[in-house]
């Protein structure tokens, strides 16, 4: 450790490669949780390692459909903040039809508003049996250590209120999703 209470790059490299004792490993791990400077140094080293590891894989990659779907499901399920929703309502594409609807509703009376509510409910009726949830249920019960699914890292899936035992290897490709795609749909 340096005089100003930071780990040296060499120490962090050893840590990343598992070359330190368990006690020291835990100490560095705890230090990283609260030291931004050391985290930055660690991330720099890790970025290099990851880039070297990823290089052969980037030659040919295609996002599996199942991953695309789950990413989109997560995007759709993400609830925007009240401020973002308010801003969305002020966009001309929404504001003008909304103003027109208010005028028409005032003109034709409440029944029209009620029917549009029914139409909304019909369009958002509970969907069918979720394929992704069934895949998760299957994976959760397969506890054979030799199974392909065993020990797979559970992660947040498309359903924020539900666990998703999605095998990490597939979600690896989610990293290839351009961030702008989410806002484009």
């Amino acid at each position, binding site marked *: 450790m340096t005089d100003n209470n930071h780990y040296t790059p060499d120490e962090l490299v050893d840590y990343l490669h598992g070359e330190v004792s368990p006690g020291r490993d835990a100490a560095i791990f705890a230090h990283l949780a609260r030291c931004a400077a050391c985290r930055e140094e660690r991330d720099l080293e890790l970025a290099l390692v990851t880039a070297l590891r990823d290089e052969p894989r980037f030659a040919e*990659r295609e996002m599996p459909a199942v991953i695309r779907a789950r990413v989109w499901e997560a995007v759709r399920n993400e609830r925007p903040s009240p401020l973002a929703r308010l801003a969305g309502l002020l966009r001309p594409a929404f504001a003008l039809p909304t103003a027109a609807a208010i005028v028409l509703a005032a003109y034709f009376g409440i029944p029209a508003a009620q029917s549009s509510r029914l139409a909304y409910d019909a369009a958002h009726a509970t969907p069918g049996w979720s394929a992704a949830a069934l895949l998760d249920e299957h994976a959760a019960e397969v506890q054979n250590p*030799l199974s392909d699914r065993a020990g797979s890292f559970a992660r*947040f899936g498309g359903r924020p209120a*539900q666990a998703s035992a999605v095998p990490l290897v597939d979600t690896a490709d989610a*990293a290839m999703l351009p961030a702008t795609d989410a806002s484009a749909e």
Partner: protein
Amino acid sequence: MQVPSKFALRSAITVAYTSGLFALLGASPAPVPSPVPLPTAAQRGDTLVRAAFAAPKRVSYVGQLQVTRWSGSRSAAELTRIEHRAPADTRRTMLAPPSMYGDYEIQRGDDSWNYDVKHARLLRTKNPATTNAVALNDNIALLEKNYRAIPGPMETIAGRLASTVSLVNRYTGERTMRVWIDARTSLLLAKDVYRADGSLESRVRYEEIRYTNDIPMAIFATQVPGGYASLPGHTFGEPSTAIDRTLRDAAFTPITPKELPEGFSILSADISETSGVRGLHMLYTDGIRNLSLFENNSNREADFGGLTPIKTRVEDHPAAYVKDGPTTLLAWREKGIAFALVGDLDIKEMIQIAASVVP
């Protein structure tokens, strides 16, 4: 009556076989060369595999696990740091891919806490299947019944000397899996999974591992970090090996497949709620490969979300399937019952099984 041990039987068979061979060749039965020594119990493949199942309950370690899967011309990989404190505390921290770097999961018994670092949120889930010892023992018994465990040469994995064992399906004669088991601790250090055509489907191995009993408990702390949102978790159904009772509790007459691949048996059943639909889930296995049959009487169509399902037919009924890594999901409806088969089998096999599920 005293029953001869397996060892005695195998010795007797070997001697009889050797004698018979000499008789066939017209050679004098004496002197009979001593039979090839049979492997000791400790060297036998099935003993090694059984020990590998039990090892995580008594061995603590810190390691880095790499998983690679191949599909057609594509491959994908992940890297996870694993801290395991026997018998049941495990922390898995993602190192790669970069999109998931730092996310971690703490598993303690059948509870798990998933920390989504980027979105500062925490999800707790409960999966009773994790600690279902009866189901696990049944699974081991099936594995031994359906697969021959053939020991191979010693090799080195992550700097550790490992015994190799090939698991060969007794019905098809195909090698389904090859595992590397630490010679000293019996921990599973690596496994290769093969497709029916012999090509490699996935490879899991520790890049590095060290055994230690000094992992601080703080590593497995499960408190909610400051600023994290704690989301309501999901409790998975509790699989029961009391199959008959579970089937009786279903709100409709359960339909089971009349045809299953050789060696498959039902392992457990549970009644669970998936997407707001209460239904029956039956898990079948041959010890390595697994197959789930979900059914409910809602007649609701499967919701593939944003997936692009491929249309097919189960006899006269429209059906659709998707592939998720090594797993295929096939969904169809018949006579008001919605069915879904999920498993690590070829779609042709799945359709054949589906056709035998007749309401």
